[in-house]
């Protein structure tokens, strides 16, 4: 028997692909977000509201990850932005090679903002770098206020947490202060936004954050 020292990251291939994507997005001056949440928390609905708010001001595009159907990409295309659907066929997360493949297949054109909507899952997507500028975790008020501490990995990793469906707050036992406290304990200095795509609450603040981060990325690039 022969022993060999390997000392290699398990996700080395993904890390290399993510680094190449990050370089490409730096060259094009595109701010890239990786949106992660459980299924049905309102990722696509938040993106629809974002597109409505920012269309005409910024060039937006999306890569949608789902196990099956083109529904999400179709919803965004209807609003006039280029969107590519990745079908994972059961895969529980997106990886950087899939994102690279999507961009090879589908030229989304020059973009200011690229949204990568991950497969609905609060666990596995956390581990995969997609070359994004930052991760965004979404938490709908109907999911319950205990979720940050139950799924700490994503809420510690995401720079921004967006609480969605805030219009339902009067109808569900969801204490915002409790969630704020949990997120602050997992991610000191992180940002928490409260939104409702139905009433429009918080959407302007979310869009302002995106524009500010885009301007900061471009200023840093000189």
């Amino acid at each position, binding site marked *: 028997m*022969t*022993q060999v*020292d390997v000392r*290699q990251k398990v996700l080395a291939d993904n890390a290399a692909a993510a680094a190449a994507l990050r370089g490409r997005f730096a060259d094009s001056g595109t701010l890239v977000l990786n949106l992660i949440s459980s299924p049905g928390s309102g990722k696509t609905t938040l993106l629809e509201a974002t597109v409505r708010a920012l269309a005409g001001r910024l060039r937006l595009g999306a890569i949608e990850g789902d196990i099956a159907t083109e529904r999400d990409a179709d919803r965004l295309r209807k609003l006039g932005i280029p969107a590519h659907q990745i079908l994972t066929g059961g895969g529980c997360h997106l990886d950087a090679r899939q994102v690279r493949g999507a961009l090879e297949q589908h030229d989304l054109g020059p973009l200011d903002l690229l949204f990568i909507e991950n497969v609905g899952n609060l666990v*596995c997507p956390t581990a995969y770098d997609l070359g994004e500028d930052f991760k965004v975790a979404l938490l709908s008020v109907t999911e319950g206020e205990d979720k940050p501490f139950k799924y700490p990995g994503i809420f510690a990793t995401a720079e921004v947490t967006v609480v969605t469906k805030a219009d339902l707050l009067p109808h569900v036992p969801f204490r915002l202060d409790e969630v704020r406290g949990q997120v602050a304990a997992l991610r000191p200095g992180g940002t928490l936004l409260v939104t409702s795509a139905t009433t429009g609450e918080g959407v302007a603040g979310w869009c302002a954050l995106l524009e500010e981060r885009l301007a900061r990325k471009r200023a840093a690039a000189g």
Partner: protein
Amino acid sequence: MHELNLATEIHRTCRATIEARGPGRLDSVRVAVGELSAVEPELLVYAWQAVVAGGPDAGATLEVEWHAARQVCEACGEREHEPGDWMRICPDCGRPLRIEGGNELDVVDLTYTPDGQEAAT
């Protein structure tokens, strides 16, 4: 459940490592798994067994080397914690905790039997 995907990556790394040295059969691989890597060691071992079953490396074992994360408070020092505790604020003084390690997810080393040396083991 991305452990299956990780097990496939680990096996690919093992195969590439062995093939760079000539043909052979994988006997065992050791993988470093950090507490914050979102990997469940037991699931990784099950996934590994499924990945190698029926192929030339069937029966090769995967050993997990567990790495805890250290939580250090500037004021209170290192804090004992339960595995899987992601707290980033010191519960005693409220200062942010510094986290050291725990993100490991590495193939450490492997053993293999070069073709034609079966009897030597």
